[in-house]
């Protein structure tokens, strides 16, 4: 029990619950189950991208190009849909996912094969991918009436009152959980990030795990490209502008260590939900929109301080006395 209380995920969940209680004082409707569900639905894309980012960060890299990837794949699927409305939706989505995967692979290859630091690679591809959105669209928008109804409405379909967006994110959470807990590649990402040297000694190719982390990140970004466009029913160059920082922030708040090797699916999801609740609650409880940015900034700072205290390296315990005292 004491262990559970010390657990970072429990603490974060407690903070979120506390926050909801406080919000409920101002606006009781906010914690109505239907509204909480819609807050979750609204956070779906952030959750998926945060999980993708977590895999990359686990391997000691960072992917700043996710938002640009979302914009590019989103524009491409929107353009395909508006030009060929008769094309079946699964095919359109598949095109987005494949393109996103390829974009992720480009990042991954440069990190793996050329050994360029991930931050430099993705800083570059971030500009390039977003620039390509402009080139292919010629700066023009794809508007809702140019998209097919199936394209816009499929993720909105409700199953037992839950929207497709939420269901997809739940499936992705489950998939990433299985991947990180049950799949060798998932475990190797933890190992590679925790100690690249030890990983090498155990026969794990660190660069390869990084490549796959970027690939999965790209794949999920591609999926989110479609989700984003159908959610807001418009595609343009500045889609998801600056979203990469929110995604990284969600990971950081969720306890994913930027130094690699540490982070859980649950923590990451909670981190994204935390930001999701703040984003959705501030306008509702009537805090001036001008305060939003400062509040989320402070939250990030506080979260990293809290995490760093929790993570603080415990010295190698040599003394038996100390061992006993701790046990």
């Amino acid at each position, binding site marked *: 029990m004491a262990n559970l209380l010390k657990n970072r995920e429990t603490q974060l969940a407690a903070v979120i619950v506390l926050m909801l209680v406080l919000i409920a004082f101002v606006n009781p409707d906010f914690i109505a189950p239907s509204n909480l569900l819609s807050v979750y639905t*609204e956070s779906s894309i952030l959750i998926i991208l945060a999980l993708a980012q977590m895999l990359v960060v686990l391997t000691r890299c960072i992917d700043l190009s996710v938002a640009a990837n979302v914009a590019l794949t989103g524009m491409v699927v929107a353009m395909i849909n508006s030009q060929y409305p008769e094309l079946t939706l699964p095919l359109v989505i598949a095109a987005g996912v494949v393109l996103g995967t390829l974009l992720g692979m480009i990042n991954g290859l440069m990190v793996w094969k050329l050994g360029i630091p991930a931050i430099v690679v993705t800083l570059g591809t971030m500009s390039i991918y977003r620039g390509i959105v402009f080139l292919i669209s010629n*700066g023009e928008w794809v508007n809702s009436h140019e998209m097919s109804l199936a394209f816009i409405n499929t993720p909105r379909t409700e199953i037992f009152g839950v929207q497709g967006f939420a269901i997809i994110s739940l499936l992705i959470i489950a998939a990433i959980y299985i991947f990180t807990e049950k799949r060798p590649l998932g475990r190797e990402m933890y190992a590679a990030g925790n100690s690249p040297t030890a990983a090498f000694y155990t026969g794990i190719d660190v660069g390869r795990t990084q490549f796959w982390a970027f690939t999965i990140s790209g794949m999920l970004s591609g999926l989110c490209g479609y989700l984003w466009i159908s959610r807001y*029913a*418009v595609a343009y160059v500045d*889609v998801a502008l600056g979203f990469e920082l929110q995604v990284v922030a969600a990971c950081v708040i969720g306890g994913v260590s930027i130094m690699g090797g540490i982070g859980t699916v649950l923590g990451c999801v909670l981190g994204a939900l935390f930001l999701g609740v703040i984003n959705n609650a501030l*306008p509702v409880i009537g805090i001036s*929109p001008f305060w939003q940015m400062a509040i989320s900034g402070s939250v990030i700072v506080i979260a990293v301080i809290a995490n760093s205290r929790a993570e603080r390296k415990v010295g190698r315990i040599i003394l038996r006395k100390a061992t006993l005292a701790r046990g």
Partner: protein
Amino acid sequence: MALKKLLATAIVTATMTTAGIANAADTRVGLVVKALGIGFFEAAAEGAQEAAKELGDVEVIYTGPTTTTAEGQIEVINSLIAQKVDAIAVSANDQDALVPILKKAQQRGIKVMSWDSGVAPDGRQVHLNPSSNALIGEMNIKLASDAVKATGSDSGEIAILSATPTATNQNIWIEEMKKVLPNYAGLTLVDTVYGDDLADKSYREAVALMKNHPNLKAIVAPTTVGILAAAQAVQDEGKIGQVYVTGLGLPSELAGHVDSGAIKSFAIWNPIDLGYSATMISYNLVKGNASDSEVGMGRMGTAKLDADGSAAMAEPFIYDASNVHKFAEIF
């Protein structure tokens, strides 16, 4: 040296895409917009080309920054000054920050005007409002009133969803709206929120408006991104028929939402006309065909300048289910 090759290719491509430069026209007008890739401005550029064709000896350089920042516009204006264009017509991201650079342009003998979103009088000779600000303000409130009526009641709550808190024209219009609001007894303005012209933020703000004000009848969004996102939000929240979205938007972007019923009616001036007029005014400024009180706008007639050098182009036009599809083809 792949890089050099790359650069060379890039520059060659760039030269080809802007091949117009080579045909040295007599008068060159730099049409600077808030940011590239916004439908409204693309349409305005079309109008500018129309004017150039009509005049014959005019070349229009359509340009703008990547994002709606003043610094980006300054950079763009800098390169226009370097190219020694004859006139600059700008829709400003910031009415004050552009003043120094535009002053410099004027010192170098370039005629400067602003259109759509204005620059402080120090920085330009003429400002062309798409319509008079008062008219736009009133139009928006009238639309809101219509929307409230469409829900079947005479009175009700309305809210404003704006773009960035710093957008010049938005703020002026909101002020004008507040001025005429007392004339509409049934309307109560309950909130003003900002979506920063980002689809996701505007969407969230619109959802929050509906949650916070269960009796809300209309959302007025005098910005093309905002109105789009709000309409989507109304639809997603299942509030069609209870809450109507209105404001300023482009027929091509909003046709779908008019069909869905989230938008009853909205207004916009014709951006093609606006671009056309701005180009005509610039041309007349260069040629010295302007007085302190008026300047010609070709087929759009003559603009009457007030003491500040501001003029209004025309009245905004209202679009609804009856005409939106016809105009959606155009802009």
